[in-house]
């Protein structure tokens, strides 16, 4: 497989009145062409900041990529100029945002918004761009596209708006699509439509997807690989089967155990006690140590390295060290076949 994107030891900080918030602290990630990777984590875990760093959409005044490389087809985006980034955004990498209500311009017809990128990046004439816009609307399943292309966002329902956002993102055939909570604002039956559409489009276009979400159901549905983030670091990565059936990190166990199972008898949920760490003063050791039932002395003092579980599976946890006691995941964390 050919490498499309690689993040090497990326650190992002925000300057606030309270001090420096270290939102992303040494993230390493890799994405192949045409692959779909899900980044899961709670709010404040750094998943959105990581994706915005790739797009270089972080506010320049208050934030900084302090360290690391973001290699997109071998080119370091951290060092790219604004003009270079403008050529990449929308053409090579595009983004779908969570809220389709606020990510569309209410004063422009949806056709114009789809055409914007085509006119800029592909130098299409107005007529060509409009034709392509109609085709894109058809592709994302909007009925009657010849008429709808002239309409404004407020004339569309929530699900239809998200389809428009997807059409805009796919307009220039990007190599990478970053979807930041693409279905969180939608109802379940509409979410099912959009997930179906995204999977279908990925098969047709071969676009690589980074999916950012907190919903493990959506992850199981769409992703091939998963990265679990906590406290600004990636605590575990692996194929979707490895993360769900053979999770190694206690935080991943906690996430899986705190979700009610639709197809199993209801017992008490295994909640993770406490709250996520304050990234203004991030803990010295493992970010999860304070909430981890298996925490050892070393966890508080030293940040664990990512241990290789298999060639595709890594977990940053001291329990995987050969000197650590052997711990089995709680029964509540077992999913499906592993149960």
């Amino acid at each position: 497989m050919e490498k499309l994107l690689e993040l090497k030891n990326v650190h992002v900080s925000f300057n606030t009145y309270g001090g420096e918030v270290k939102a992303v602290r040494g993230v390493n990630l890799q994405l192949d062409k045409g692959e779909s990777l899900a980044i899961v984590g709670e709010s404040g875990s750094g998943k959105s900041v990581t994706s915005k760093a790739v797009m270089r959409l972080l506010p320049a005044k208050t934030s900084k990529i302090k360290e690391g490389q973001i290699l997109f087809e071998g080119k370091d985006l951290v060092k790219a100029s604004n003009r270079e980034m403008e050529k990449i955004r929308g053409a090579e990498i595009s983004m779908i945002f969570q809220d389709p209500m606020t990510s569309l311009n209410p004063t422009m017809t949806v056709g114009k918004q789809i055409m914007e990128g085509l006119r800029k990046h592909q130098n299409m004439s107005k007529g060509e761009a409009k034709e392509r816009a109609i085709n894109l609307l058809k592709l994302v399943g909007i009925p009657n596209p010849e008429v709808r292309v002239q309409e404004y966002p407020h004339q569309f329902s929530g699900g239809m708006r998200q389809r428009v956002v997807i059409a805009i993102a796919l307009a220039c055939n990007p190599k990478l699509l970053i979807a930041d909570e693409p279905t969180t604002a939608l109802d379940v039956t509409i979410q099912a439509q959009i997930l179906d559409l995204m999977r279908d489009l990925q098969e047709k276009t071969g676009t690589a997807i980074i999916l950012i979400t907190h919903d493990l159901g959506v992850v199981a549905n769409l992703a091939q690989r998963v990265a679990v983030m906590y406290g600004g670091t990636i605590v575990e990565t692996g194929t979707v089967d490895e993360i769900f059936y053979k999770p190694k990190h206690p935080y991943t166990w906690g996430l899986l155990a705190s979700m009610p199972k639709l197809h199993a008898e209801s017992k008490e949920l295994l909640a993770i006690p406490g709250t996520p760490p304050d990234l203004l003063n991030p803990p010295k050791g493992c970010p999860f140590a304070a909430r981890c039932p298996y925490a050892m002395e070393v966890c508080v003092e030293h940040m664990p390295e990512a241990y290789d579980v298999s060639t595709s599976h890594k977990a940053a946890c001291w329990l995987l060290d050969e000197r650590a006691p052997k711990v089995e995941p709680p029964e509540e964390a077992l999913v499906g076949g592993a149960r």
Partner: protein
Amino acid sequence: MSVKDREVLLEVKGLKKYFEVGKKQVLKAVDNVSFEIYKGETLGLVGESGCGKSTTGRTIIRLYGATEGEVNYEGENVHGKKSRKDLKKFNRKMQMIFQDPYASLNPRMTVKDIIAEGIDIHGLAKNDKERDARVYELLETVGLNKDHANRYPHEFSGGQRQRIGIARALAVDPDFIIADEPISALDVSIQAQVVNLMMKLQKERGLTYLFIAHDLSMVKHISDRVGVMYLGSMVELTGSDMLYEEPLHPYTQALLSAIPVPDPEVERSRERIILEGDVPSPINPPSGCRFRTRCPHAMDVCAAVEPKWLEAREGHWVACHLYDEEAMKQN
């Protein structure tokens, strides 16, 4: 305990709530909904946004006046003419927990005053010392501690704020709590904490809950029975295990099949019922059955006749012509 021996705490009969939305248009947010809530149970109410589940909850507790219909609490109509004193009595028995823990706590009040507001109104504490003692006890009940009492809401995380909201609801010793999407704004690991707390409190205090949510797996977990709403009407109501094992209404079937399950193998092999289109506008809902425009089984009779609310199996209510022999004959 079988359903029949259970004591009815709250009875909702033909409840309607219409909103006027200008130009003499009427939005039928809740249209003819009837159900009962038994003492000590949790009734879940699910549906997509705009289906009227929150409006139902808010009308029950009188945040909205009902357009038509009755809400009987222990046999007494909540919506009839009431004196201030009578109203106060109801307010003490029924409390509400809101969705957004950021918007539902007054930012200019301390946690102590927020929790004690009900205690003050109902005169439940004789003096300041007793008032403080009650607040501290409540804070401990919900897993906070008394050091938190003099702080302001902005100093707390979402999960902690929701705990404050729960403490406020408990302050007047209610029997019945309406929880309107109490966990939707929280992170997964915090959701489990709050749900566990609510279930523990129910066991300890014999509370009755109306739990409104759109997350079906959490609703199944916490509820004894679940009602499914679509576009202002109730389409199915039954025991939560029954609903998930054998959903009768085509909408419930689609809703259940639409939830992504956190199990990759299941997700890969699962056949989904994907509904076409969107929910129609409640200002001008379809004639007959409101779901017919998206229903894979729609028949001629569905457009002509509104389906009856009938007990298709024991304790399993559904509003669909497929389970109504008379309607099937007409078709």
